[in-house]
Each structure stands twice: as structure tokens, then as C-alpha cells.
């Protein structure tokens, strides 16, 4: 029983990192832009938050709430800026989206690891950096609910960003599918020429969807640094791996934010399952870690076989738009 509870907890924490990445990417893709820079943006979000918290904490006498706020804003701003860079290249300059996205991933990882290493040096060496005050603010739980047996382990033992991710997913789902602005956004992603002809400002929608989407992705990086690794930094490339899982989750959830919630937890469950199955060799552990990707492949095959128009990617995903000119 305890084992299962622990597995669920690990799955939810893990899932939250990729849930943020997916939610951001879903919003961006709904505007017709395939941003493969998700891992890079998560990196940038993570390092921005960490740097903000570190400099505030090392100035002395840190107040947990202020520190949390600073790192949150830093992460949002850093990742939104990365999104802005991507939008400028792909929307305004109409650069190839795949190439730009991949470049952004490499760029983001480079920037983050460079500053990560610099921060560690400032902090006094490898493994020395720790923003414990900030991290504990992110991981604080509600006192009353903490002690209910089983239920509390299942539902109330997480940092607040875990709940925010779920709220964002529901809000985003409602926005995309139930509001007129969401309808306009989907029109931009499906058929920008049509959207343009009815007076929707296509460029503005694309920029906003990409930048806000990137900010949400960045929260995934922040959550990873502050909650998942408890306020430390390691140049081990984990964020990148999770970033790609987030991109896979977008497809798994067939571009619906609500599906991404359980999809993320399922991915987390599958990913950590090997830890809770005794007697696995190193080799079979790696096979287990592969499961989320296998499931995504299966969903892709299933969705393609069903050929339902509603479950496909936005029609103009990956294509640049410019008003017809001779």
C-alpha cells in the first residue's frame, strides 16, 4: 500500500513538470506554431527562477514569500522572453519552425547550464548551490490537511505549483473550447487566411499564444528546480529529457489541456514504475523508462487509424502565414 502511495506521489510530482511543458505547448500549437523549443524554455525558466532566488537569498535575511515571488516572476519573464524570440523568428521573419525550435532547445540548455555552472561556482563549488528558503516556500503544505491518513499522502502532500498546474489546465481548456477568443485562436491555428479575412489579428494571436505558452512551459522548469530537486541545480540534462516528454504528451493528449492532466500523471506513473517493482535489472529498468514513449506511439497510431478530424493537430501547424501577395 505504502509503495503504491509513494509511486503515485512520485508520478504526480514528475507529471507536474511535464504537465506545465505540455500545457504551454498546447496553447502555442493551437495558434499553429510548433515550438520544439520546449526543453530549452523549461531550462530557461528553471535557471531564471533559481538565479532570482539565489541572489535574493544570498543578499541575507530572506523572506520566504518574497523570495518565492521573485523567482516566480524571474521564471515567467525569462521563459516568456524565450517565447518572444521564437515568435519574432517564426511569426515575423517566418523562419522554419522546426529548425528554430530545435535551435532554441540547444540555446536554452546552453544558457541554463552556463549560468548554472556559474552560480555553483559563486556558491562555492559543485553541488553547493541550494535555495532552501525559496524551495521550502514552494513545497509548503497546508497544516490541517497534512495529517489525514492516506488521503493526505494522495492529495495534500504537494507544493502549490502542483495544484496550479491542474487549475491552469482546466482554465485553458475552457478558454480554448468555450470562449470566443478561444474560437478565434483555434481559427488562427486551423486556417490563418480565414481568420485574417474576418478581421482576427493573426500576428497578435500568434505572438500572445506563443509567449504565454512559453511562460507556462517555464513554470515546468521552475517547478523542477524548486520542488522536484528541492532548490538545487545539476547539469545532468534531466530537464531536456522531461521537455521532450512534454512534447510527446501534447500529442498523447490530442491537443486537449484536460487530457494532459491525467496523461501527465500516467507518464509519471509509467516512468517511475521500475523503482517500485522489485528484482529488476539495470537493463529492464531502462525498458520501463521507455514506456511513456511507447504509449505515445500507440496513441499516435490509434488516432491516425481513427482518422477523426477533431483529433488531429491544428491544420496549419508548422506553416508560416503571410497574406497572399503576388
Amino acid at each position, binding site marked *: 500500500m505504502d509503495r503504491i502511495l509513494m509511486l503515485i506521489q512520485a508520478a504526480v510530482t514528475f507529471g507536474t513538470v511535464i504537465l506545465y511543458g505540455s500545457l504551454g505547448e498546447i496553447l502555442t500549437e493551437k495558434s499553429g506554431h510548433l515550438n520544439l523549443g520546449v526543453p530549452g524554455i523549461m531550462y530557461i525558466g528553471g535557471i531564471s527562477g533559481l538565479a532570482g532566488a539565489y541572489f535574493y537569498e544570498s543578499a541575507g535575511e530572506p523572506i520566504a514569500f518574497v523570495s518565492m515571488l521573485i523567482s516566480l516572476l524571474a521564471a515567467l519573464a525569462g521563459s516568456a522572453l524565450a517565447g518572444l524570440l521564437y515568435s519574432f523568428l517564426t511569426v515575423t521573419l517566418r523562419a522554419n519552425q522546426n529548425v528554430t525550435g530545435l535551435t532554441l532547445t540547444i540555446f536554452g540548455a546552453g544558457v541554463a547550464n552556463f549560468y548554472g555552472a556559474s552560480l555553483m561556482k559563486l556558491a562555492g563549488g559543485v553541488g553547493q548551490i541550494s535555495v532552501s528558503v525559496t524551495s521550502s516556500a514552494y513545497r509548503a503544505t497546508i497544516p490541517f490537511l497534512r495529517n489525514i491518513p492516506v488521503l493526505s499522502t494522495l492529495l495534500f502532500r504537494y507544493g502549490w505549483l502542483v495544484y496550479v498546474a491542474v487549475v491552469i489546465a482546466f482554465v485553458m481548456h475552457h478558454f480554448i473550447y468555450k470562449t*470566443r477568443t478561444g*474560437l478565434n485562436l483555434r481559427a488562427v491555428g*486551423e*486556417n490563418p487566411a*480565414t481568420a*485574417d*479575412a*474576418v478581421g482576427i489579428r493573426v500576428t497578435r494571436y500568434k505572438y500572445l499564444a506563443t509567449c504565454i505558452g512559453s511562460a507556462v512551459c517555464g513554470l515546468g522548469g521552475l517547478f523542477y528546480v524548486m520542488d522536484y530537486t528541492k532548490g538545487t541545480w545539476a547539469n545532468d540534462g534531466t530537464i531536456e529529457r522531461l521537455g521532450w516528454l512534454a512534447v510527446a504528451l501534447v500529442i498523447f493528449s490530442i491537443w486537449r489541456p484536460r487530457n494532459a492532466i491525467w496523461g501527465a500523471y500516467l507518464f509519471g506513473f509509467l516512468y517511475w514504475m521500475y523503482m517500485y517493482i522489485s528484482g529488476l535489472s539495470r537493463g529492464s529498468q531502462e525498458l520501463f523508462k521507455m514506456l511513456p514513449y511507447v504509449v505515445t506511439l500507440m496513441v499516435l497510431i490509434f488516432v491516425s487509424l481513427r482518422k477523426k*478530424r477533431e483529433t488531429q493537430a491544428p*491544420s496549419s501547424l508548422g506553416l508560416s502565414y503571410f497574406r497572399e501577395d503576388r
Partner: protein
Amino acid sequence: MTTPAVQLENISKRFGSVIANAHVTMDIRHGEILSLLGENGSGKTTLMNMLSGVYHPDEGTILINGEKASINAPKDAYQYGIGMVHQHFKLVDLFTAYENIVLGLPVKKGERKEQNEEKIRQICENYGFEIDLEKKVYDMTVSEKQTLEIMKVLYRGADILILDEPTAVLTPQETDRLFEVLRNMRADGKAIVIITHKLHEVLEISDRVAILRKGEFVGCIPTAEATPQILTERMVGKKVELQIERPLPQSPELRLRVRHLNVISEYGLPVLHDVSFDVYSGEILGIAGISGCGQKELLESIAGLQKTETGSEVTFFPAGNGTDTPLIGLSPRQIKKLGISLSFVPEDRLGMGLVGSMGMVDNMMLKNYDECSSFFTNRRTPRELAEKVMIDLDIVTPGVFTPVRRLSGGNVQKVLVGREIASAPSVLMTAYAVRGLDINTSYTIYHLLNEQKMKGVAVIYVGEDLDVLLALSDRILVLCEGQVNAVLDGRTATKEQVGLYMTHLERKDGNSHGA
């Protein structure tokens, strides 16, 4: 006299060195249907796009209801009450009719869906359309999509309507219904501009005809005083022979036999069902049918591009004493080598058969580069061929190496058809060869097809314009829901007859007897 709805004064528009419109001055009046006529590339669509906010004029002024207007975006056009229904529909396939109608409109406080739907119903009642608001666009027929487009424009309060080739893809019955709606709108005082290449429609529906030639306004004549001959001459600027010849087939021989052809689409639905017919040399077999009812699959099955079900038979009988050859199972290249050629002009005119970014020479080469024995490419032969096609078909291009994408639609099609004819086929299949072409160029293509027929080629012509099909074909095969509904004699069939066979399946397949 009341103020015209729109007055264009001295409007000019250039694209680089190309002059699309030069000093156009004309007016559009309320309660009137105006036809805008002109050859391909004469600037009709450009002129109307300046009213709908897609382009901005370089020179000149636009007055709407007597007041100077500045239209910089489609949104501005709506504000002035101008709505344009484009040739290529601007609809989101995945959305319902209702979603498409309200798309992009600012949300009013306390707006309710029921009120909007009521407003839509009201418009439907006023003008006599029918619309299913919950239907997704991808499930709609072309005619339903067009109705939706018109509704979109009316819902936005347009009282100046511009329709760009609205009848190009409609059946005669659907066209009649559209015209009924347009007449209702005219009676309601709306100003309507209709761009069309079909002269009989111009004469049928409009009150006045405005003619453009090479970007310049030639004049406006009341429809009552117009005849096809007058209109064409003013449009082209010289005398034109408007007669499609139809010589009798010379000693026809069986060239192609199709039996029990069945094709199932990738979605698992039958596209062609038990199709059987014969094709003879020296004749033009016209194929009629509403769009997407199996024409493409039929031609592609013969050309070897389409997977057919077992039991389907397509047999080729070569001229002279050659042996009969079953085509099913052969590769497209082997079929082509037998002398069976296909030129298909899709909606976007590029994309099938031509590579837009390559010049005429390279496009000519695509068909026969494999016949060259050297490792290196040989451009001399295709270049000579390209030059010959250019001169023969009067193709307007800066040079044979200019990417074909930069040519106007008519010229692109001439390259496509010209290349197929140059390969001296014994069966020439062509689909939508005159799609979107003006009358003068269309006649050039009809003439080319007739020339091939006289040479003893078996021509299969899939067309959209029934008048042309009736004037050109020796026999007409009417497809309906993927089945051969009728084979009519082109010399005696009437348009109504063909239209009826296109929409109402007469023959049932063997299994449903007595059902």
C-alpha cells in the same frame, strides 16, 4: 438619381512592374447586379480585393455611399458594409456553420447564442436559403459552403456584396438557387457584383456588365443591349470565334475498356462502384458529375495511380495490331509508356504534374528524364520542346527557365496540357483543363483537344462547365455517387438532363433490387 453604393475613381494598382489596374473609374449601384467581366489577369479580382481590404490602391479614391473611404483591412471593409465571397472559400473546416459565422466578431455584453441564431434564421427567411448551423464545414457540399460564406457576409451587415466566380463549382440546379437568392437581395436594395467567366450567366442574372481589359476599364453596358459576341469582343479587344467545333469521330476503334471498376477510399467508403464503359479513338468522351464523386479516382485508376479492388478490369487496345494489355497491376510509368497520359488540374492548379519552383524546361523533363541514357542531364531536348510548346500555345512567360509558379493560372495550365499533348499519347485524359480560365484561353484548349481527337487520339475530358461538355463531347458519361448513372449522346443531351443525372442516381446496383 441616388448616390451609387460605390464609386471608384481613377484606381490604379501595381505589383512590382506588373500593372494590375490602371485608372479604373466605375460605379456600383444599390438594387442592381453588376457583372464584372474580363480575361484572366485583367485585374477583376485585384480590383474587388481593393474594395474588400485585401489590397490597398496605389492611386485613386473610393467613395462609399458618396463618402470617401479608406479600406486597409478586411475588417474596415465590413465596417463600410462591403462583403466579399472569395473563389476559394475562407472557412474553417473543423468548425460548425455557426462558429464560422460568428468567428472574429467582437463579443457584445450579454450576447446569447439564441439571439444570434434568431438573427441568422431571419436572414435565411428573407433571402430564401437553408443552413444547418450545427453542421461541420468538412461535411458540407460546395454549395452549402458557399451559402455559408454568403451568410457570413450578410450576418456582418454587408449591403454591398462581391462574389468571385460563385458558380464555378455549382451544378445547374444549385446555380439557379443561388441566382434566386441574389435576385431576392437585389430586390432588397443590396448592391451586388458578380465576377464570372460564363457569358450566359452574365446575360441571365445581371443588370449591367462592366468590362476590364488588361487592367483598364473598357466600359459598362446594360445587359439588355449585350450579346455574347459583343461582350467577348470588348473583353478581348478583337474579333473572336465563339464556336466549339465538333467534327464527327473518324473511324472510331475501341481503345480502352473499363469493366467493374471498384475503388474504396482510404476512409473505407466506396468511391467508385462497378464502373464500366468503353473509350474509342477519335472521340471525346466527356465525364460529368458534381465535384468529388469519383472523377479523380476514375482517371487515376486508369493511369495506375489508384489502388483498385479485385475484379476491376481496365484493358488497353493499342492502335494497329498491338496486343490487348490489362492495365491493372502495371506501374504508372509503364502505363504512360503505352501512350496513356493524364493531366489533372487540381483546385490550386499547381501541385499535380508540375513543380512550381521549376521552369518549363525542367517540368518538361520530369516526364521523360529516364529515357536519357547519359548519367548527366540533357536539357537540350526538353528545352526545344518547351520552346515549341511556348510558341504553339502562345504561353506568356519571361522565359522557359522562369519558375512556372510565377506564370498566371492560364499559362500554367497551358504548360501542363501542352506537355501531355507533346508526348503524343493515344489516350489523353484531362481533368478540369480550363478550370478558372477565361473564355479566350479556354477556347484555345478546346481547340487543342479537338486537334488531338482528329489525330485519332481517344480523349477523356472531365469538366465542370456543362455547356462546354455538351458542346465538346461526342458522348457524355455522367457519374453520380461513384456510379455510371448515364451515358448520353453529346449531340442530343440537354443541360437539364445531365444536371438531373448528376444529382439523382437512376440505376441501382444489383443487390438492391426491389428495395
